[in-house]
């Protein structure tokens, strides 16, 4: 399978990404917290550009010990949201948050020296 050049590692800051287009394939490559992640850029919902939306942490309802509600905050999991309709995906797995049976196709990322490639 061909390797497609993504970027020089030194060019990618934390939270940056590139969209790699190769023939019929579109792949979003993320650099976050020292790791690279690559997924299909086609949302499982309506085919939107799933990897082109914002990165956002998961939202959590805060419940007290007696099950009363305290408010909301952000959790530690990082999601990315399809900009068309807001379908959210787990950055580490590509799973769709609303239904984890659904997931984006995952691609391997390789680093050679200062250059990042995605295997398509």
């Amino acid at each position, binding site marked *: 399978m061909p390797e497609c050049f993504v970027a020089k590692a030194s060019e990618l800051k934390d939270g940056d990404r590139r969209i*790699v*287009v*190769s023939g019929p394939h579109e792949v979003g490559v993320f650099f976050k917290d020292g790791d690279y992640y690559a997924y299909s850029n*086609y949302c499982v919902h*309506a085919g939107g*550009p799933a990897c082109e939306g*914002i990165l*956002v942490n998961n939202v959590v309802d805060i419940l007290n010990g007696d099950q009363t509600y305290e408010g909301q905050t952000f959790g530690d999991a990082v999601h990315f*949201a399809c*900009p068309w309709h807001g379908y959210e995906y787990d950055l580490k797995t590509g799973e769709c948050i609303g239904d984890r049976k659904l997931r984006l196709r995952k691609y391997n990322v390789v680093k050679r020296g200062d250059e990042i490639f995605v295997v398509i």
Partner: protein
Amino acid sequence: MDMVRNEVRQLNPEQYTETKALDHASQQARQRNYQDFLIVDVDAHHYESESYKDVFSYIENPVIKMEAMDSMTRAGRSGFLNNQVGYQSLGGRMTRHKNRAFFKARGDRHRDVDWTLDWMDAMGVDYSCMFPTPMLFLGLHPQVEIEVALCRAYNHWLCERILAQEPRIVSMLYLPFNDPEWAYRTVRDFGDKKGVVGFMVTSPRYKPVHDNAYMKTYALLQEMGKPISFHAAYSWDDRALATTNRFISVHSLGFMWFNMIHMTNWVVNGIPERFPKLKTMWIESGLTWAYCLMQRLDHSYMMRTSDCPQLKRKPSEYMQDMYYSSQPMEVPDDLSILEATFKMIKAETQLVWSSDYPHWDFDLPSVIYDLPFLKEQAKRNILGANAARLFNLDSKPVKTIP
């Protein structure tokens, strides 16, 4: 055929265009050969609030016009127009709502014309029915005369600045329904304008559709052959809906709630019997509400025919003569449920596709085209032919898919 593509892109909001943002929609359009048949979008939107200064200049009453113009100078404080609490953009997850500020008009026409044509072509749409956005809540304004004034100003503005400029954009004009006399005059004054394919009542309001005061408006619409539509929205001020605490709740319920009430009053009071040729459309409530209400009313009707003596058929049979816009189309995992809904509303002739673009839960034509239980002709009917018949549009495709 798509060209062979090889590139690495960075995200750059300042280069936002509808064509780029909807590139995947264009891919779908080419793959499904949308260029070969007509696609009509019966419910799409623009943000008329971006043009309020221009719209307000069309207000006829000098006192209201002065108040409206003054309101432009005090943004953030008490408004001249009512609005609703809401966060459709999901905290910025729908990036187009922010990025569209970078869109630039290409020529002398209003910016909304170029912007609308761009997304229409990208999706494969030939004709689009344009509706306002904040004005969907105007039926809840406490001052009836403001609804009338803004409605007439907006309708004048829309006809002159948009509809007269671009034949692919049509509209069902806003009816100031809280004032029955002005609703009648609106049909009379605007019914023959270019691009006016019907009239629209915003559903969140507290006026019964069977009030005698509306009969002459329905009669005039029937005589002119122009459909009436009820465009759903929510009201977080409604007493029952005020108990909900999240947008998902008020939206899911609110967009069905008001149309369920209006439909019930419409049928139970025999409006379809009184105006048998008046074409009626229900917009943006999805489809499940109709499937539910048909069964619910039929069940009670058999025991309580004396409550609705004008009816000669079951309520569902009248509802099957009406039109339904498709978005937001609920797509269950088990498609046989959706297939049953399509059968119940006679989708092949009564369902009309809508995008609701650019709003947060828009649909693409593929939501219909990819359904496995529809034959090709049924798909084409729902995506365009039914609406072309309803709006009297030419059936020849005119779009240019990028």
